[in-house]
């Protein structure tokens, strides 16, 4: 065996992995779905990334009319930028100097996947879900986000048919920046509300 070859470490499948494989194979065997359709859906999911959400934010920062339309009807505002968002009913919540918003789904892991892609592990963790609703400031501080006492915090628990996106505040010192350059400041975590966009 070649010196240093990384063969990985043997790990038995977990319960959920086994369930997923069994169910998928059964569905394919019974002709309910094809391997191809599953592969396409997975590729589709992986292809969606937070850059889609960042595009909305950057446009709202440079175009006050767009910002209004985004807050009024987030889904239509996505379509206006040519983003396909099937079945998404988007509620955009805006941070202001007096208000900071943060998103959670305490019941499961509802998340605007068509705009932000696959949610991070922590978003689905019991720790985040159970704590951010009752001690948001402490949880945000663990992300390195310190919200001043003078700012009100509003937690959005995404429990049913809406999906949420935080519209962060545009950082100071970005006057005259292009939309592309602005969008690069907008991370996934900024749009969940656990981080703030930073310049440089």
């Amino acid at each position: 065996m070649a010196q240093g070859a990384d063969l990985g470490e043997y790990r038995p499948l977990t319960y959920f992995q086994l369930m997923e494989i069994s169910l998928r194979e059964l569905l394919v065997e019974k002709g309910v779905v094809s391997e191809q359709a599953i592969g396409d859906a997975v590729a589709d999911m992986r292809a969606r990334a937070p850059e889609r959400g960042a595009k909305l934010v950057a446009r709202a920062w440079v175009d006050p009319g767009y910002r209004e339309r985004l807050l009024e009807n987030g889904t239509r505002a996505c379509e206006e930028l040519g983003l396909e968002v099937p079945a998404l009913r988007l509620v955009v919540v805006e941070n202001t100097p007096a208000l900071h918003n943060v998103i959670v789904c305490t019941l499961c892991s509802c998340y605007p996947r068509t705009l932000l892609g696959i949610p991070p592990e922590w978003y689905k963790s019991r720790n985040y879900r159970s704590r951010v609703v009752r001690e948001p400031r402490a949880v945000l501080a663990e992300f390195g986000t310190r919200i001043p006492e003078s700012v009100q915090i509003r937690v959005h628990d995404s429990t049913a048919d809406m999906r949420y996106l935080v519209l962060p505040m545009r950082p100071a010192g970005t006057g005259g920046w292009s939309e592309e350059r602005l969008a690069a400041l907008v991370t996934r975590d900024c749009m969940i509300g656990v981080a703030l966009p930073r310049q440089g």
Partner: protein
Amino acid sequence: MPPVAAPGGAAPRAQYPTGHPSLAARFAPGQRVRVRKAAPLGHVRTPWYVRGCSGAIERLCGAFPNPEELAQQRSGLPAQPLYRVRFLQRELWPDYRGRPEDTLEVEIFQHWLEPEAGP
């Protein structure tokens, strides 16, 4: 955000109207409501921590098939009006340590809401 209308006015406007046959919306933005304190079995989308708590209607989202019925393979129709309800954190968590004005908003279906009882 849609404008907050005074309670008792015309039927509130939904942010995302759907074509489902639906029940009429009973509540308008700004109206005080209480979440029913109930513990039915099944697939319920009303978090435990808001049951029995009072808040204010923030907006009418639209009318959507009842998830408790959908989970039983039924149609969930007529669709239930769905609201965003705003709560004060200090009223949800007696030991809440943040600012007294901090809030939390949750989507709640109409059949889980009742008008807040008078004093």
